[in-house]
């Protein structure tokens, strides 16, 4: 229990109306069933700094929080005194529209951020899940979340050019700069992408932006066999077609999606979704080439555009969160793109053997598979461990992105951090010597 005077001091920093202390209110801020004692919503960066100064003086653990959409990512925290939400830090600091650069406070939701940028016909080239559930810019950076368009644009590391951080002891510092090209000093923004709140609280971010593409179409095409589908993938990737997103959907997933979206395509086959965004003529030309190449490989499909296309990609971006509203087990495998079929086949085998159901959307051009599993907890644990063993044996990685505590108890969330772990621990220690920030959830 936090001492009364500490609570009072925290309340004094943010003001009583910007804090929650009642148990009923705290419930929705628990992480893996660990309940915080207080939730704070600072309005200013200075307040974040004050909170951290107090936290480090009193050795209070702090869970940084955006909208909590990724609170299931990571190990169960060792302790949780304070949840520090950045929600009220939601102002755009400056938008240099003519330079395609913007600096924003990190509590802004991606949805609001994009809508402001869209007014200038620009956007932040990130299409992660949870945007409808108010994912914040800071949380997306910290979790290094992305979506199908990473094929074309990459992840946050590619366009986060500067940031401001409040460190564990309350010091405010910045890294990077506000221009698109800069090599002055270490590239601290890279360190914070995917740091999961363990190295400091990201309060401000500067991004490089892109112009919104003029037009978009998607070719949805199913193949008699996985081999045919992947053959088409390899042909497409080895061509000069500029593809925005390229997903392989397994039959289980496409059948759920087909129903939701009135897609009217075969729902028992591996399906490719090939999205192209560009000036209209380039889209039409390239989609027609894509169609020819896929159909030569035994594919049969249809072109979707407009609202139907947008809805379809919404579902992929938010897969599996939109599809399955409760008790989700989600993991992400990363392998070489030529190894994707092996992973898909392994998953099929595990499904048959262990009586589980797997839904998969594979970022075919990146070698990333987003996998959702349903079944008995013990079968899921067994399957996840077998899957990790297989993926590791071919040089890849498996990360559990979301799972109930009982699953996490049977499968390592992060797997092997590799030979860089020693350095990672030293970095964590140097930035957070008392292990206050998200203790136990990630690097400790």
């Amino acid at each position: 229990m936090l001492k009364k005077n500490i609570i009072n001091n925290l309340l004094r920093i943010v003001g009583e109306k910007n804090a929650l202390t009642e148990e009923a209110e705290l419930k929705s801020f628990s992480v893996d069933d660990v309940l915080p004692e207080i939730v704070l919503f600072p309005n200013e960066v200075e307040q974040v700094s004050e909170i951290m100064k107090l936290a480090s003086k009193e050795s209070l653990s702090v869970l940084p929080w955006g909208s909590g959409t990724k609170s299931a990512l990571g190990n169960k925290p060792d302790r949780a005194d304070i949840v520090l939400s950045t929600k009220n830090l939601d102002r755009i600091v400056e938008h240099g529209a003519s330079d395609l650069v913007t600096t924003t406070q990190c509590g802004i939701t991606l949805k609001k951020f994009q809508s402001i940028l869209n007014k200038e016909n620009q956007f932040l080239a990130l299409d992660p899940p949870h945007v409808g559930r108010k994912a914040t810019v800071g949380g997306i950076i910290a979790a290094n979340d992305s979506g199908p368009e990473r094929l074309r644009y990459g992840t946050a590391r590619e366009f986060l050019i500067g940031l401001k951080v409040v460190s564990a002891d309350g010091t405010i510092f910045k890294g990077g700069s506000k221009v698109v090209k800069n090599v002055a000093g270490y590239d601290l923004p890279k360190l914070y992408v995917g740091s999961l709140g363990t190295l400091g609280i990201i309060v401000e971010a500067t991004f490089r932006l892109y112009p919104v593409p003029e037009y978009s179409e998607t070719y949805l095409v199913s193949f008699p066999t996985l081999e045919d589908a992947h053959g088409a993938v390899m042909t497409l990737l080895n061509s000069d077609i500029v593809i925005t997103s390229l997903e392989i959907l397994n039959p289980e997933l496409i059948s759920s999606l087909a129903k939701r979206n009135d897609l009217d395509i075969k729902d028992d086959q591996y399906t490719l979704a090939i999205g192209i965004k560009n000036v209209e003529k380039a889209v039409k030309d390239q989609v027609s080439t894509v169609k020819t190449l896929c159909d030569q490989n035994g594919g049969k499909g249809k072109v979707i555009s407009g609202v139907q296309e947008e809805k379809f990609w919404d579902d992929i971006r938010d897969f599996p969160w939109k599809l399955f509203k409760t008790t989700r087990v989600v993991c992400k495998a990363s392998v070489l793109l030529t190894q994707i079929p092996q992973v898909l086949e392994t998953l099929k085998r595990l499904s048959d053997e262990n009586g589980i159901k797997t839904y998969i959307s594979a970022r075919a051009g990146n070698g990333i598979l987003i996998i959702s599993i349903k079944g008995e907890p013990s079968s899921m644990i067994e399957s996840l461990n077998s899957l990790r063993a297989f993926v590791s044996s071919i040089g890849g990685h498996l990360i559990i992105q979301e799972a109930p505590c009982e699953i996490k108890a049977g499968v390592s969330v992060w797997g092997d951090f590799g030979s860089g772990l020693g350095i990672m621990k030293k970095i964590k220690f140097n930035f957070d010597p008392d292990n206050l920030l998200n203790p136990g959830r990630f690097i400790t």
Partner: protein
Amino acid sequence: MTTQHKSKSLSRKEKFRDRLIEIIGADGVISSDDELIAYECDALTGYRIKPIFVVLPNSAEEVSAVIKECYKENIPYVPRGAGTGLSGGALPTEEGIVISLSRMNKILDVDIPNQRVVVEPGVVNLWVTDAVSSSGYYYAPDPSSQIVCTIGGNVAENSGGVHCLKYGVTTNHVLGVEMVLPDGEIIEVGGKTLDHPGYDLTGLVVGSEGLLGVVTKVALKIINKPEAVKTLFASFDHIEDAGAAVSGITVRGVIPAGMEIMDSFCIRAVEEAVGAGYPVDAGAILLVELDGPTAEVEALLPIVEEVLKENNAIQIKVAKDAKERELLWKGRKNAFPAMGRISSDYYVQDGVIPRSKLAEVLGEIGELSKKYGLRVANVFHAGDGNLHPLVLYDSSKEGDLDKTLELSGEILQVCVDKGGSITGEHGVGHDKKRFLSLMFDEEDLDAMNLVRCAFDVKGLCNPGKLFPTPRTCVEPGMKPFKEHPLQKAGLGEMY
């Protein structure tokens, strides 16, 4: 120094050399004065320090053994690629050795289907593209020095090139490295696959200027050659108009592969040197390269032409074929060496400004040039706002160099005042460390030092670079170091 003292220190040095020879063999250790001269400096020749030895290891294991020896003997070392760096990054340390990676120059793995190439650090940048070109691929970062500079040097400096505007710089194309840490341990971070769990150490190592360890292997991403490429050339009476055109193009939603500007000094020098066909009476020229699907390039070309006209372009030409295009780029890529023709000495700056401020800043640089009575030539990556003002001076003229340095400093101040950076691709190194504080406060530098200390607590790896004032890892005012839990448990030595 007493004789006794000297002979003692000599013998320590000799012993150290013997150890190095044991590790690498006699032909891999350079110790004679006349051979050491070649390693005294990089392309920033104004600073020179002679290393005690140079070693030429053949493998990561040899690098590791050398570094363990340095760690034990507290001898500083500087990694070195081709020595084309422009910030003194590979400048040796007093009483230190140079670790040259030039023998580790093998391409280890060309994996076309997975779009990856794995190389040793001494591989020359252009070799990567040469190795994959026949399959329709290329390695995107293309510094003008690409025929000699190494991937190891590119990684350390996070080098750019003329096509970075659309495709990004080195860090956007490096997926992993193997490196030898300052205590000699060999680690792998990142790799051919994406999304390794843990912190993005790869992202941290790229651009760290050789201060975090010696990179011994690099996994690179290669990309498909575009379907169509169009290179436009436009001449202007005034460089400010060229600058405004660059900003105008991106404001219209066009991101060319690259946009480069050269001023009249450069045009004349380049024409004399390589005859690229630039009009010698122009005030400035702008090269714009569009690439991508044919239909996209065709749709964007008229937009670019329109913006060029709106900004008073005099002549606009589109290269007819690959040969014409290469000639236009040849001029640009030879701009630095060509400057030697109009001035015996020049000093390159590398400031960055927001694109929209190009016209304004180019005007201010012109004013500064007048104020100091020194000519300033401009050739730069305009699309990224990355300026390369070349201050032309005469080293035989008393005071000229001092004036040059002062003028260059003022230019960097202008860049920072406009919200920019002191270096876009050449790095801070030895040369610009005193300017780093223009951009970063003490707190910011402390944070960087926390990173450095996680890697190199003894400060032996390329010391004296980057940071404006030397920083140790336990300094008054810094957070006191607590005992690391690993260490407490007796599992790790003091770092």
